[in-house]
């Protein structure tokens, strides 16, 4: 792509992101959604998080990983354990990342 075409692509991406994030928020009049759907939306953020996390931990190149020697498994387990021990998000990030780096750089997992 030329510089100008790339800039056009970026401008389009910006507009698309704004319109999707504001899809039901931006119209002047509320579009009626059924009540059960509003109720079900309660589970949407949790589902989106899990759907991003689980493949990041247990898949490589679109395949389930076939080895236990994968730093991500232990990092994720350490993170969950730390969270339930201390209930602290910042500590969880530090511990999980430290375990991942130690296994990856130290053992090459």
């Amino acid at each position: 792509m030329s510089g100008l075409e790339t800039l056009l692509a970026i401008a389009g991406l910006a507009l698309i992101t704004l319109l999707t994030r504001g899809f039901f928020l931006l119209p002047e009049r509320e579009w009626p959604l059924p009540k059960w759907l509003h109720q079900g939306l309660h589970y949407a953020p949790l589902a989106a998080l899990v759907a991003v996390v689980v493949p990041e931990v247990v898949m490589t190149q679109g395949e389930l990983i076939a080895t236990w020697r994968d730093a991500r498994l232990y990092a994720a387990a350490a993170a969950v354990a730390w969270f339930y021990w201390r209930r602290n998000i910042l500590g969880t990030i530090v511990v999980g990342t430290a375990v991942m780096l130690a296994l990856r750089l130290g053992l090459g997992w």
Partner: protein
Amino acid sequence: MTEPTPTWRHPEFRRGAHEMFDISLGVAAWGLITGVTMVKSGLSVPLAVAMSLLVYAGSAQLTALPLIASGAPLWVVWATAVCVNLRFVIFSAGWRPYFGHLPRGQRLRLAYVAADLNYVVFMRRFPQRRPAPEQLPYFWGGAAITWVAWQACSMAGILLGDLIPTQWGIGFAGTVALIALTCSLLTDRVTWVAAVVAGCAAVAAYALPLKLNLVVAIAAAVAIGLVLERGVLRPAGGAR
């Protein structure tokens, strides 16, 4: 309704900023990786800066970059972004009860910064779907922290580019942040079941193009959550 104090001096602004601060370490790691990826995929520094500031959506940026680099037609780049952003359409229906009454200019500014994690943290703080005056300052406190953490690290990634070895997997810090946030949302049996269903659906549907497995997982979890709420697991009287 007039606000007696400016948004940023409201105590809920500080609370929103504080509750997002811990998670912002993960946001920062992703911003860094996204910045590095933009320049490594061949974007010039000014274009990478423009993309970071204008688009401000990590997953849409990361999916679009290889397409832009390979010279895909514009409509393919844009159609891909629409699909990757479908989850935002779902979230926008969740924002409506809280912010639908605001003037359109404010709603546009909200839409620009309404990232995934802000949605999750906001809904954890305000589970009741009705507007209240402290919601806007709380939202902006978290949104400001997220924006600054993301943009600062994205810019650092753009400028440092080749100095940061991506094979270390620093981006995994972002995944760990999501793990912590997920754990904080697992409050009862129904949410656990919904999470397991979402995880299995996301892996099973992983082969779908354009990250549509996210949409499949959300739909599956919403469906199972609704079914269970209607009394399969909860005895009579326990329903909300």
